[in-house]
């Protein structure tokens, strides 16, 4: 009986140690995984930033381009007007 009780107590102690170690291991694994995910997140964020910047450059160009095209159309309109004036004179 005594032997069985000692065996049970020793087994429980071992179980406690095993659980504590498992806890530590889980924490470590989680820490590693989180680090990895954060790295991925960081690289994706910087990529997103770059893409945002490029999009901003593109948008900037497009707005400039729109106003340029407007000016160009105005210029073409003046040119056409002038050509029509000349043609009507002739």
């Amino acid at each position, binding site marked *: 009986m005594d032997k069985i*009780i000692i065996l049970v107590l020793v087994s429980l102690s071992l179980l406690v140690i095993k659980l504590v170690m*498992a806890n530590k291991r889980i924490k470590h694994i*989680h820490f590693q995984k*989180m680090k990895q*995910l954060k790295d991925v997140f960081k690289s994706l964020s910087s*990529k997103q930033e770059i893409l945002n*910047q490029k999009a901003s450059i*593109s948008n900037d160009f497009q707005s400039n381009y729109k106003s340029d095209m407007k000016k160009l159309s105005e*210029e073409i309109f003046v*040119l056409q007007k002038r050509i029509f004036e000349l043609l009507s004179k002739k």
Partner: protein
Amino acid sequence: MNKYLVIVLALCFHFVNAQKEPNTTYQFLKKIDEINYLNDAKNKSSIDSLQLIIDNSSNDTIKGYFYRIQAKFLISQLEHDVALKSLDKSIAFYKNANNSLGIIKSMMNKGGVLYQKGETKKATQEYVNALAIAEKKGYKNEIAALYKNIGLVYYSQGKTKEALAYNNKALAIFNQLKSKKDIAATYVNIGNCYFDDYQPQNALLNYNKALKLSKETNDNQTIAKLYNNIGSVYINDLQDTIKGIDYLLDALAIKKQMNNQNDLIIQYNNIAAVYLDIRKYDLALSYNDKAFELASKSGNLEELINVYDTYALINSAKKDFKKAYDYHKLYSKTKDSLLNIDNLKAVEEINTKYQTAEKEKQLLQKAAEAKKKTTTIIILSLLAFFIAIVGFLIYRQQRLKNVQQKQEFELQSAIAQIENQNKLHEQRLAISRDLHDNIGAQLTFIISSVENLKFGFPTMETSIKNHLTKISDFTKTTIVELRDTIWAMNANEFTFDDLRSRIYNFIEKAQSVKENTAFKFSVDESLKNNKFSSLEGVNLYRTIQEAVNNAIKYADATEVSVQVKPKEKGIVIDISDNGKGFDLETIDLGNGIVNMQKRIEEIGGIFKIKSELKKGTQITISLNK
């Protein structure tokens, strides 16, 4: 015949099986350890010859057993003193062999011999000692036998109440063990107690129970004893002398067959007493003489008392008072020696000691139980504590896993979201690139068409020509902007080297327009590998481009300098010219300067402009890097 058989067996045992294991010897001794063999006086020589062989044996248990058998034989032959020596040897050998059961059995036999010799004090002591060992070892059969023997001692002292108590304890254990022979013997003792207490019916009831069991087990010795006792009940208490004598003679016949000297004494004496009662003095004397012969030979005081008493009564009945008186004196003398006060006191003392020891034992048992209880509580507490810790750890582990899974899931979701957004951005940028390519092609087409018109109609009106030139220049500027945008979008990061080569391209074109303007572009060596993002790169490029353009276009500068220098935790870009300058307070700042400031602030920098009339303009851009 039996004798020769034993000798032959013994010799065979010695010479042939000398090398065999002690178990064989033990089996042989067990074979001769039975009443019929041991009661036969003729077997003395064979047992003596067996002793010579056993003495050479190295096994103490075998030796102990043999000497006990020898003692039993000697007891049956009424040689009590020699039997005691054999039993002492037996006990000594058993002790050497550490054989508790053997020790108890031999001590029991020794107690029996002492009891028969009238030494009740020593006998009781022996029984109590044996009982202590038997109780310690838990030998139930031996405990019951010892209770029975102690009961016998009390019975011999006339204490039938105590004797009955011990016999009943013995009977309870024997019933548990279902040992018919022992149950029968105990019933005999109980019957004897009732007989002495003048309860003939109870006595007969117990004797008959014993008789039934003894017949079942063919135990002739007990059957003889029972016939004798039943006879006594009929003669003494139920007044049926004839039936009583018949029982006594039946008992005598069996006892003669068995040749047990002690039993024969009792039987002869009983018959003599009965014949005395019915006034057959000669017959009474002849039976009593036989009893006396055997009792004096064995020194059996207990039986000798009865024999002397019977002699006294016979002679008294025969009116020979002198002889009767002499025998009575002998009776009294012998009885005194057997039943003296010391003996009674000693037995009582031993009993008290035994009872005290029993109580102490019970107290110790209670203390041990309390200790066991405490130990159990401690063990249970420890178990509960450990189980609680294990439970807590499992719970914590599960909770930790949940929290971790939640964190990981949240991060993974964010990553997935960013990935989706990035994909979307990439797709949009791809579409933008396609659009830019398209726009580039269209603009190139416009430029070449305008140039073709100009080339195809050299005589066209000047105003139209100017318009076409304006359109062509405007389109060229747009295409340059487009190329700059594509340049900025194709690279993820820039260095000052990239920036410098781009600015040089622009300066070369500017120089082709204004040949008398000197341009200077210098970058500190330590900053050559500094990197910018595409937005920073394009904003810086356009700011520098705008500043240089302003210097050429509006300030009429002959020297334009762009210097990139390091500062503490950052970079400083100085763009200065020696143009006509302007008054910052009076002049209305155009879109160009406002756009420059916006672009620099967009990338986290500081834009400063300093200008004085006829002293040129200085633009300072500070960036934190």
